[in-house]
């Protein structure tokens, strides 16, 4: 079986003594080494030697990211996920910038630091409450709070401005010991010691225990819910400190300053050696991860990497840094290489690999008749579909409510066919993405390459078609083929290199962005053919053609996920990789297939968007990443995999699109809309909460 797994946790348990200790710190050690090498490279190729001044600047440049990454790491260690980190940075920044007295140049550093940390902890407590006690999935809660916080931030400060006292900047960007220790480094050392202390407390142990196995932790008598709650509070405190630091660094407020940091925060955590899913790694690695990401900026500069190549270079550096951390005798790559060696050896000896050890090791399947249980009466409809319905229903109920509100507020909805037609046309993009991203999530992965797969495929299509219907005949297959290749790269990267899906797909996204820029030379040429445009915008029998297509697509998606063997393998993997493997599922092949499916879905969206807009543009896929994850989870799927139904995800798509349509029809300010959006998403999923989980 070419497919195997880096996912098995028990592998490391076979090791004893020093090996265990080293393995535990492997991620951290690699991050430190990679950082040291990069720093050395910068020093070597820079115009002059690095002075204390340069080091001081480098240390302040990465500090915000490092502090936020420390918070995120603690959440991830406990098995959680926090999308609100970037938004909290912005909120703390504007709170400080608007509440400080512009006349007071000597504001109290300690007081305002505590204010920042307090704001962060307050939001952490809200997140923690919904996650630990209402038992909602972290990704949905933090996605909702992210929107709400962004709205509140804009209400507090609608454009860059405000004032942060120079005393704050003077303190955080100054020196602990002049010409010897810059303050940011001192601060991070303090944070490091704080973590080492906390790790030794019962709370620290509980974080790892809950992250490794919440059920085992609960059985051992740990208070899982309280641990989770405090994890988010502590993490919020670190985001708050990060917000204080960014305020010190910028001396003013900007409501958008933290939001784009979100993906970097996750990248820093992963580069720092923490495994997504919990239980392994630590915040100190993430600090180095953050500095690795920031020093890449300097390296690209000194090497004078052209602008179009910079995202490609970053993607490759990210991959290499993580790959370096995973290289060992047990790593997936090493295993694949050994496997390949075996295969070559077998081929030269003229045998199958399985024959090398002698004998046929396959299980003998003598009894292949139907098992007793399957021959009996079919179970009732409810018992077969009850769970799927229970998780899918809330999205539909919420959608009906939104449509009713639309009818009463704006009129002109329920009995207006245009409304429904627009709703379906606008939903089509997310509905298609939901199949791809949803299938990936069902296996426990995540596809972050969605935005630029959409962008690249759309630009490629428009460039080839150049407004000609005839060209569509060959352009469509070519674009789909390109998508298959993108999916293969993602899938093989994950299966062969044994890397986390987040890292591989994030790197692919960067490479595709560079590829799109190179292909288009900065301005995408060409436009959609008339037929494709008509498909998305004209009316056939009063209905836009894409609506007919969507009906067929939804039927296909439902059958594909719940009635084919591929679909069942996907659920099998999501419920437990080891179990799936032992049951004879070709895990590797299935995973590769899943990422290919996701890439093809993204390509399809790129094609349809090109038809819808009439042309392709750079960044056309940017707005689809978080929604593609949100609809899947709002539709009742479990972010850790194994649970979810396509019809539920479709409900999520319809709910979010109906909600956006309602909000767009009003004249509410953007900030209020963001808050309403977050509240509705949160409300919709409260009904989804997992009642059975032990706490």
């Amino acid at each position, binding site marked *: 079986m070419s497919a195997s797994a880096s996912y098995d946790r028990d592998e490391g348990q076979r090791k004893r003594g020093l090996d265990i200790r080293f393995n535990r710190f492997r991620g951290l050690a690699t991050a430190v080494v990679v950082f040291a090498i990069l720093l050395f490279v910068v020093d070597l190729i820079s115009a002059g030697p690095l002075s204390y001044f340069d080091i001081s600047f480098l240390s302040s*440049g990465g500090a915000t990211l490092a502090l936020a990454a420390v918070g995120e790491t603690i959440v991830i260690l406990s098995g959680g996920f926090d999308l609100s980190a970037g938004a909290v940075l912005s909120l703390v920044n504007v709170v400080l910038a608007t509440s400080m007295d512009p006349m007071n140049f000597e504001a109290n550093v300690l007081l305002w630091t505590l204010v920042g940390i307090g704001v962060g902890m307050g939001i952490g407590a809200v997140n923690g409450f919904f996650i630990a006690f209402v038992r909602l999935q972290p990704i949905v809660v933090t996605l909702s709070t992210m929107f709400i916080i962004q709205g509140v931030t804009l209400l507090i400060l609608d454009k*860059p401005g405000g004032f942060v006292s120079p005393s704050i*900047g003077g303190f955080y960007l100054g020196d602990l010991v002049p010409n010897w220790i810059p303050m940011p480094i001192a601060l991070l050392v303090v944070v490091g010691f704080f973590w080492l202390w906390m790790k030794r407390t019962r709370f620290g142990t509980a974080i790892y225990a809950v992250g490794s196995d919440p059920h085992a932790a609960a059985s051992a008598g740990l208070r899982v819910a309280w641990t989770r709650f405090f994890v988010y509070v502590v993490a919020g405190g670190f985001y708050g400190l990060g917000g204080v630091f960014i305020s010190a660094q910028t001396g003013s407020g900007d409501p958008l*300053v933290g939001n784009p*940091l979100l993906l970097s925060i996750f990248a820093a955590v992963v580069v720092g050696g923490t495994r997504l899913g919990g239980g392994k790694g630590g915040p100190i690695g993430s600090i180095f991860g953050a500095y690795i990401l*920031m020093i890449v900026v300097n390296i690209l500069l000194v090497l004078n990497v052209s602008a179009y190549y910079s995202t490609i270079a970053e993607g490759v550096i990210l991959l290499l840094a993580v790959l370096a951390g995973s290289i060992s005798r047990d790593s997936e790559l090493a295993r694949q290489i050994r496997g390949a060696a075996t295969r070559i050896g077998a081929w030269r000896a003229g045998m199958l690999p399985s024959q090398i050890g002698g004998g046929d090791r396959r299980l003998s399947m003598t009894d292949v008749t139907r098992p007793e249980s399957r021959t009996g009466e079919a179970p009732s409809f409810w018992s077969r579909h009850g769970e799927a319905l229970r998780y899918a229903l809330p999205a539909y109920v919420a959608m009906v409510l939104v449509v009713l509100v639309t009818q009463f507020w*704006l009129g002109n909805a329920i009995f207006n066919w245009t409304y429904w037609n*627009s709703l379906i046309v606008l939903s089509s993009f997310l509905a298609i993405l939901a199949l791809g991203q949803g299938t990936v999530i069902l296996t426990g992965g995540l596809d972050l390459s969605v935005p630029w797969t959409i962008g690249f495929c759309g630009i490629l299509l428009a460039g080839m078609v150049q407004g000609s219907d005839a060209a569509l005949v060959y352009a469509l297959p070519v674009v789909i083929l390109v998508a298959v290749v993108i999916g293969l790269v993602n899938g093989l990267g994950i299966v062969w290199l044994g890397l986390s899906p987040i890292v591989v797909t994030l790197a692919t996204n960067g490479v595709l962005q560079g590829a799109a820029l190179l292909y288009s030379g*900065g301005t995408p040429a060409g436009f959609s053919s008339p037929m494709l445009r008509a498909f998305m915008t004209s009316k056939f029998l009063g209905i836009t053609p894409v609506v007919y297509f969507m009906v067929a697509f939804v039927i296909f998606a439902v059958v594909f996920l719940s009635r084919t063997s591929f679909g069942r393998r996907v659920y099998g993997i999501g419920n437990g990789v080891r179990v799936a493997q032992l049951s004879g599922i070709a895990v590797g092949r299935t995973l590769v297939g899943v990422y290919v499916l996701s890439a093809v879905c993204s390509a399809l969206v790129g094609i349809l968007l090109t038809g819808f807009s009439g042309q392709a543009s750079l960044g056309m896929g940017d707005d689809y990443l978080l929604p593609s994850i949100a609809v899947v989870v709002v539709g009742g799927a479990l972010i850790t995999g194994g649970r979810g139904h396509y019809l539920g995800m479709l409900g999520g798509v319809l709910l979010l699109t109906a909600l956006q349509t309602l909000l767009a029809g009003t004249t509410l300010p953007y*900030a209020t809309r963001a808050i309403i959006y977050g509240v509705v998403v949160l409300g919709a999923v409260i009904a989804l909460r997992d009642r059975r989980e032990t706490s």
Partner: protein
Amino acid sequence: MRLASRTIGTAAVAALLLGGAALTGTSAQAQDKYKIFLSMSYIGNDWQAEAANMVKAMAAAPGMADKVDLQVQVAGPNAQRQIQQINAMVQQGADAIVTFPISPTALNQVVKNACDKGVLVFAYDAEITEECAYNVHIDQSEAGRIPAEWLVEQLGGKGNIVLVTGVPGTSVDTQRTAAAKEVFAKHPDINVVGEAVGMWSQAVARTELSKILATHDWDEIDGLWMQAGCYTANAMQLEAGKTPEGLLPCAGEGSNGGRIQMLSPDTEVEGAASPYAPLGAPRISYASPPYSGGLALKLAVQKLDGGDVPKLTVLPLPIVTSETVKLCVEGTWEEMKAGCNAFQPSIVTNPGWFASIFSEETPEIGLNAALVGQPEL
């Protein structure tokens, strides 16, 4: 090096403006090149790519090429990275940094530090509020007010309008939208029936307008004020069955697609295909011109040469209405100087491409600069 250049500074600038290379050529060979960095923001949109092309073309123009060593870096949408990047540029010994600032305030400290080390910082299009920085941009309030006043006049002071704004939370969007709303507030019979966040993107404008039209009908709307997206709005009206004569007045950005639509329907253009075709659409087209980066670079060199450059250069707001729109045949700087302001679709295949590339101040850069980064010869 800088002392030497200062002595011939004024003469060099004069020669440069005339496009003459003889004097600068000989004097520049004697000195080292200025090390100038471009720190771009996000390159995932047309405007940014076009502006960067024009900066590169300016650096390659005769009289500049032998003076300037330009390196281009991208910071992405992330202010933290731009802070780090500008620091690294200072560390690499930059003489000047030309930047599209991601935030008007977040860069202040790092810019201050760069200035203290004698590095010139020029911001184009958006602004940096730190006092030592040089800013090159249009008056954003005017960019909101003038199109809004035009729209009110077109509608005779009454009617239902839809607003499509830019990126919420940015100074540019806030200033433009506030100025426009102030105008509309003076006319009680102007009703804003829908307001969408357009993110300065034609593609987003289409999705947002589709959402508004799910609950409103085109017949209920009398006019549009958009920071970007009139081209798309016109295309959508045609799809919905409107005739070109029935298109709503639209006040919006200066994309070439929009300019072509403004031409009277009998204009002959090469490579037109509906909706990227002359329609006689009632429009006012304003723009944040992408040549601002090129001009910022030119001013930076002037300053390095010892010339006098004001801290704030407010660019004239390019305004084109259906009456003043004129098709360019080739798109040279000379031709644009004569008053043309829209380009053949056969040359500019992307309708979202920004057409306001003409400036009296920058004879070095024309259509080829914006398209492929080549200076005028």
